[in-house]
Structure formats: C-alpha cells, structure tokens
C-alpha cells in the first residue's frame, strides 16, 4: 500500500468511504471538502484537480482487489496436494468472480480500464497495479505448470491475460437486458479452465 501525505490520505479515504454508499462518478468536491474538513486550497495543493483525487482513490480500490485476489490464489496453491484439490480451490475463486453479484465490480473495473486508456495519468497509477495482478496470476500458473497441474504449452503471462480478459469482457453481456444464463457461462468457463489452462500434462 502506498504511503500518502496525511492530508492526501484523509481525502483518499474519504472518497473510498463515500463509494460504499454512492457511485464514484456522483461524488462531488464539495462533499469531500465538507466531510474531510480539509480546505479547498489544501486539496489543490495535493491534487492537480478533483479528478486526480478520484483517480487516486480508484487506484487504491483496485489495488486492494489485487491484494485480495493474489492472497486467495496463493492460499489455493499452498493448501493443494493434487491437481484436483487445486482446481477445486481455484474454482471457488474463478466462479465466485463470475456471479451476478459481481456485476457492479466488473462494471467499475471496466470504467477504470477505460479511464486508463484515455488518461496518461490514470494509466500510470493503474498500470502498476494491473501489472501486479497479471504477474500474480502468471506466477500461480507457472507454479502449477511446474507441478504438472497446468498446460505446459501455454505462456503463463498470456494465460493470465486470457483469464482476466474473458472475465472483464463479459460486461458486453450486461449492455442489453437479454443475457446469457449464468449456468451456461460457468459451464463454458469451467471447460476452458479445466482443459486449456490447467490441462493436465
């Protein structure tokens, strides 16, 4: 976790707390100034503009998601004695991420990615976290390959991107009200996980 100047930290925490009750795009600078009791001058001393504060808060939120995923994946690896154990453990993580309850998370993820594409500043702060997530998943796949639990003919980095790509990309299905049923999606994903990425040697 990055260490910020105390004032900066208060403002970022304030935005993160507000996201628990409202969408990040609806948060206003007046709201943050009032709740944090920090002066406007001080805010603009630490952030070039209000948007930068929002971007920093988004990166911190994303970083905590990354920490969570990486720690769950390492646990899955450390408790598994066989490929079957391992697949059961990661199934809980993978399918947990595909549930309808995760729709909001996936929508915010896509919003962050879009911002990172459009803004160099956001790309700098998000890029490092994205890298950490991709490498964390790739390390896990590499370790599974060494144990003979994953497809040796795949590049671990590309496999990591692939897993994230179809998970993030599923938002396409949420644009319209006609959606594929979750069971058929999980069924397809399970086959890809089981027979492509973690295909036994």
């Amino acid at each position, binding site marked *: 976790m990055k260490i910020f100047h105390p004032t900066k930290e208060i403002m970022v925490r304030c935005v993160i707390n507000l996201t628990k009750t409202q969408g990040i795009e609806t948060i206003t600078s007046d709201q943050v100034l009032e709740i944090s009791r920090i002066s406007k001058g001080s805010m603009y001393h630490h952030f070039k503009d209000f948007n930068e504060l929002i971007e920093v808060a988004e990166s911190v939120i994303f970083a905590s998601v990354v920490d969570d995923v990486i720690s769950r994946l390492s646990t899955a690896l450390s408790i598994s004695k066989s490929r079957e154990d391992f697949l059961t453990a990661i199934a809980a993580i993978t399918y947990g991420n595909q549930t309808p309850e995760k729709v909001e998370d996936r929508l915010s993820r896509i919003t962050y990615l879009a911002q990172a594409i459009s803004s160099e500043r956001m790309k700098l702060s998000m890029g490092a976290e994205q890298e950490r997530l991709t490498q964390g998943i790739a390390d896990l796949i590499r370790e599974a390959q060494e144990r003979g639990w994953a497809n040796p003919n795949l590049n671990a*980095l590309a496999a990591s991107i692939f897993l994230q790509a179809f998970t993030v990309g599923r938002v396409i299905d949420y644009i319209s009200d006609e959606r594929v049923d979750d069971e058929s999606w999980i069924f397809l994903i399970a086959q890809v996980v089981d027979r492509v990425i973690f295909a036994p040697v």
Partner: protein
Amino acid sequence: MFRNFHPTKQTLIMTAVGLLEANPTAETTSEQILEVSGISKGSLYHHFEDFSELMEYAHVFIFTREVEKSIAAMNMMLLQSKTREDLVGFLSKVTRQSQSPEMKSLRNFRLVTVAKTVTNLRLRKFLAEEQLRLTGALADLYREAQERGWANPALNPTTVAIFVEAYTMGKVVDEIATTHMDPEDWYSIVDQTIEKILFPAVK
C-alpha cells in the same frame, strides 16, 4: 444502422468517422467536424445533445462495421470449409487479424464505449441493439457449425458468441500494464481454446 436518422445527422456522424479513421490517435474536435462537413454549429446541437453523443455514434459505427466484416469473413469460411480442420485453420487466421496489435485502437474504442454505458443510458440503449445483433450473428454461425458436427454440441451458441467477444475486448488488460505479452503467446492460447473447447475434434 442510421437509416432512420436525418441526413444532416448522418453527414455529421460520417464526417466524424472519416476524421477518426484518418487519424485515430489525434483528438477530433467539433470545429474540425463543422469545417469538413460545412454544417453549422446550431445544426449540430439540434441533432445531438452534446459533442460526445456525436462521437459515441461514430465509435459505435466503426466498431459495428469492423465486426460485420469479421462476421462476413467467417460466413465465407464456413461456406468454403469442407471439413472441421478447414474451419479451424481459417479461424486461426482470423484470430491473427482480429487480435493483432494493429487492432488496438479499435479495442480501446470498444472498451471506452462500453464503459460509457455504465452511466450513459442513451448510449446503452443504442449499443444494446447493435450488441444483440452482433452476438446473434456470431451465435448463428456457431449453430451452423454445430449442425455440421464441427462445433461442441454441449455449448450454448450465444454463450460462445459472448465469450469470444469478451476475450477479444478484454485483451485491453494487457495494454494497461507496463510489460506486454508476446502476441504469438496470445494467438496460441486462443488457438488451443478453439481447437479443444469451441470446435473439438470428434473422438
């Protein structure tokens, strides 16, 4: 896609499309569009709520046209394939085109447009129609391949269509990070997914 639109509205969208394509990395301004099209500012704001709405339409237009090209190419492949192996070979070539680094700006457009639908209901409604049409066309192709015994009969064709669209767009994840994967490694994983899961050989 814009058949029901007023001709002025169509002209503005097509001008934006032309400018976006001529220089995908530069920012297109409303001044440029007005100058090139010869349409007045008042008229632009009569047809569009704001300048972003015009650009949203232009992005969706480019995206849809590209996907339609891919669908047409896939239809052609299905027609020309005599065996499952022919089809898998063709698909492998399409992967190398549609997933290539050169298509990056199109993928980025796509993601940014989809992200906007989170807060922009106007765009969401418009994109939803296009999205259903494209997913439907891809699903039809898959169903046809299933009927010929070349595709996995256990999979739902619409789910497969969403899955293919999802990983194609989601590849953006790689572009945000600081180090990038080798495109060949990506093609390999897509090929293996096509070969083993989407179009498996009958045992």
